[in-house]
């Protein structure tokens, strides 16, 4: 599968790996393996704690299963963590590296006590792009307290073909182990095939449902590039040998994988317009799985009115802001986004509180199942966290469908409101990553994030059980009021050296 890394070909040539370690015996240990145990610490003060064998075989793809069994108890980790904190407080600042030039840079810039480091300097926190990660991750050694914004093989979930592969496998396992009912809970992604490898089963399925519409997406491109709709097999045959493409593109097409996905023909429309949802989920650990759901998010509207009769007009169908921006009548002043709150308000007004509650439960289910489907595949690493941007589509029956997951959700803001949302989101992400050591680790809510899964479902503390009812309410509040500042004020200790107001 050389195909997989195609998108990254634009990144720089490998540089000498940064010499961030002081040790001698741990040369070229893949950072995703050892340091995540929290035990390869170079600090002399840490040695009284039992050190596991640090000469683990060095492999590129270390099976994650093994080190989960090596995982020390969380209390040991916490103690270690605290010791590190004390040490870091001595340094009194957090050195960060930022590979992106948008909202995240502002957030990092304005965070009290954080300083940016130059290209090759040592860092404690790295918000890198996936290209950097691929080039450098395996060569860098990371200290215990260091954090980085991607998991090593994040693409298992975020690449369209791999996501489907993982979900299908997970569904099969569930069916085998827990029965059909349980497996049916995974039926939230449209029927999808990877081309060219699954071309034959795709054709079979295609012929079984004549007249249906399908969508083709290149697996490794984002922002709606290279996507088209079709209804006849002839269309993709033509496309395969399309003479109009240049030689260069043809070469690319030979290795480029596509997915063919059953198109959702009955999307939920608001005032005749199609939209999809962008929701943010933060994963701080895969083993055990710990995932947070952000309250804010947005609905992206298509600028044109929806009708299936115009399948050539991709502006109708694709709600990506990136695509919409190139539409001939796109007006940047207009905005095509709704925040989650008005959407929730709209849906509640139309369908009632209970329906919306059920819908958000089903959406939670999508997040959790999709994360569980890659839990054993993703290389768990204590240094890593990941902010996913989920794209969800609703159909007329208010059933949510998973369209795709993005590992680097666009953090470039399209408007002030959008900027504010992303700023809040990233600030809260940093609160949870907690470089400053201001949390206890037992929080169920930090700012706009609600803890959704912590090795099992998380329920709210307050509410009905206080009134004697035994029913459990999921601890997620998508599209609810985000009174994060008040909550943060109560929750967080002030930044070091800052007075609480």
């Amino acid at each position, binding site marked *: 599968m050389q195909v997989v890394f195609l998108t990254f070909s634009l990144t720089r040539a490998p540089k000498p790996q940064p010499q961030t370690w002081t040790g001698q015996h741990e040369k070229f240990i893949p950072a995703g393996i050892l340091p995540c145990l929290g035990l390869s610490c170079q600090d002399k003060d840490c040695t009284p704690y039992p050190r596991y064998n640090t000469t683990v075989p060095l492999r590129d793809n270390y099976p994650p299963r093994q080190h989960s069994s090596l995982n020390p108890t969380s209390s040991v980790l916490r103690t270690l963590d605290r010791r590190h904190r004390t040490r870091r407080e001595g340094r009194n600042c957090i050195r960060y590296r930022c590979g992106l030039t948008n909202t995240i840079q502002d957030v990092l810039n304005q965070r009290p006590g954080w300083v940016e480091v130059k290209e090759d300097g040592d860092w404690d926190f790295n918000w890198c792009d996936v290209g950097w990660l691929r080039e450098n991750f395996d060569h860098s050694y990371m200290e215990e307290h260091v954090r980085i914004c991607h998991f090593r093989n994040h693409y298992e979930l975020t690449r369209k073909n791999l996501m489907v592969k993982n979900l299908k496998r997970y569904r099969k396992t569930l069916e085998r182990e827990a029965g059909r009912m349980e497996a049916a809970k995974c039926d939230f992604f449209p029927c999808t095939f990877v081309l060219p490898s699954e071309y034959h089963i795709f054709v079979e399925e295609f012929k079984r449902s004549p007249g249906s519409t399908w969508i083709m997406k290149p697996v490794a491109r984002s922002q709606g590039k290279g996507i088209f709709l079709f209804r006849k097999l002839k269309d993709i045959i033509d496309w395969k040998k399309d003479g109009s493409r240049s030689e260069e593109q043809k070469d690319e097409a030979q290795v480029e994988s596509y997915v063919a996905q059953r198109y959702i023909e009955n999307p939920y429309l*608001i*005032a*005749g*317009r199609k939209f999809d949802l962008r929701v943010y989920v933060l994963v701080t650990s895969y083993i055990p799985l710990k995932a947070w759901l952000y309250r804010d998010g947005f609905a992206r*509207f298509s600028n*044109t*009115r929806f009708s299936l009769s115009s399948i050539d007009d991709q502006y109708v169908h694709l709600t990506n802001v990136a695509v919409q921006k190139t539409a001939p*009548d796109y007006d940047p*002043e*207009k*905005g*095509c*986004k*709704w*925040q989650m*709150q*008005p959407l929730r*308000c*709209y849906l*509640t*007004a*139309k*369908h*009632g*509180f*209970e329906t*919306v509650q059920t819908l958000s439960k089903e959406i939670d289910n999508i997040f959790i199942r999709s994360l569980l489907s890659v839990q054993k595949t993703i290389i768990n690493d204590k240094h890593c966290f990941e902010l996913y941007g989920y794209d969800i589509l609703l159909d007329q029956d208010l059933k949510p469908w998973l369209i795709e997951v993005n590992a680097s959700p666009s953090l470039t803001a399209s408007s002030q*409101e959008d900027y504010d949302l992303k700023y809040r989101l990233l600030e809260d992400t940093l609160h949870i990553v907690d470089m400053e050591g201001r949390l206890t680790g037992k929080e169920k809510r930090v700012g706009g994030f609600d803890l959704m899964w912590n090795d099992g479902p998380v329920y709210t503390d*307050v*509410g*009905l059980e*206080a*009134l004697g009812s035994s029913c459990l309410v999921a601890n997620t509040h998508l599209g*609810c*009021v985000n*009174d994060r*500042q*008040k909550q943060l*004020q109560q929750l967080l200790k002030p930044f070091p050296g800052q007075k609480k107001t």
Partner: protein
Amino acid sequence: MLDESAELSVSITQIVQRLKGTHLHSQLEKQAKECLHKPEIKLETLKDDVRRLLKASGWERKLQNAVYRELHILPPPGHPRAPPEHTKEPLAYMCKAQVNWEKRILKSLNSMCTELGIPLARKRPVPEQKELTNKWNEMGTDEPDLSKFRPVYAPKDFLEVLVGLRNPNNERSEDLTVRSHWGLIQVSLNVRNIPQMREMYPELGLTFGQLGIDDHTHVPPDLFESEHIHIGKKVVSEQDSAAAQQYSRQGCPTGLRAQLWSLILNTTNDPEDITHYEQLKARVIHHALLVDNLIYKDVKLTASNDDYYFVFEDYLYQVLLCFSRDTSVLEHFNYNSATPPKSCIQSKSGSEQSAVVYPPNGVIPFHGFSMYVAPLCFLYNEPSKLYSVFREMYIRYFFRLHSISSLPSGIVSLCLQFERLLQSHLPQLFYHLREIGAQPLRIAFKWIVRAFSGYLSTDQLLLLWDRILGYDSLEIVAVLAAAVFAFRAENLMEVTSLASAEAVLADLSTLKMKESHIGLELPEGALYSKDPYFVQAAFSPMNFSIMHDPRS
């Protein structure tokens, strides 16, 4: 003066008169006749039996709701010898001001007509009719050149007219008290003071639960909320307008609001209503009006640029275009100080001229008019339903926001109410703003004219409008406007120009009234004590650096 019973009998006669011949009337008759075939009807107790059956089948409730609706739009009975114009507006100088204002609007409209060479109305050629029919659901995708059109007037122009209002009986300025010089509104009208407001708005007191306002009540919020939702469902199932209105005073739950509002307004979505809407649509398709361009332009300028409402662009065209053709709206001019404008049409021969109301509904849209409809799109997605709710809201409330009148809920009273509240409770702030040339009303006027639509976030706005419907009054709009000043008072005390004061108050969308619900409480710190902060809009304190806690 009439005594109460005489007054009542006058009202009853009027209502009976109005309900006679309505669709409801004929339906009731039909139902009563059908009853006669039932075995349980006895001849000797005929009247009671029929009544009982009508009650059991829900028809009595429908009649009650219809009567209740008539009571809302029934003008207060005047002196029997007073001419009918007096119910429109009793004060001569107000009438005159309104007439002059209308002349100005018409002049502006006429000059636009001549300038652009566009007729007030024209029949569309058949191909154009077909095109419009096809595009009916996506009118927003059309991008006609509207650069030549400008709104007939904006709230700012209207404010100038209100500022210029003078009572000729008070001509000598030295007779005025010092206080009446403070504000922009120079006429004296009777507006409620705080104790009177406490009487008027008992449910907004501290001891009452407000949907989501939990800080000051003694009931745990979840308990209040679930109880409130439970009651709401009951109100809906009872189909009782009066109960729904009372209920709305404490806020409607989002999931029930659409039903509750249409119950309060007694709007239905019967086949007749749908037919009526379809007729209006046909009229739009057959004829093009000059005001269509104004509507189009207004939607483009306001709602289409709004973060919440841009989605509903198509609905807004549909509703507003139909509204402009709806002659049943004319009825509200019986109690509106405004008079529908007239224009002359020439018959085909050219010999005869006859005056017709223009536009057919008598309402000339101004800049921001579409914002009266926009929030309702969050509640109703069938255009016919959306339409009838909007029309009812307009003929009950919104017309008051752009007609010069002395009525308590009229725009002049609201402005005065706003100024008085600020003057008496934040005199320093008022003085400061006045001194730097930032009269508070100059900033607040646009909020009031639009009943805050487009300024508050939708969820908050709907909670505000809950109270408008619940109390059948727009007064709460003025109170909220004053509350906004109170909540940003500290920042406002520091500004030194109108522009910077406007900047402080530019963005109201972050105003949060406690956990997403409006906190239009008038609590002890306000109406209920001597404290200066008379409205506790329980805004999230962190949105401002200036949250006042009256008790601290």
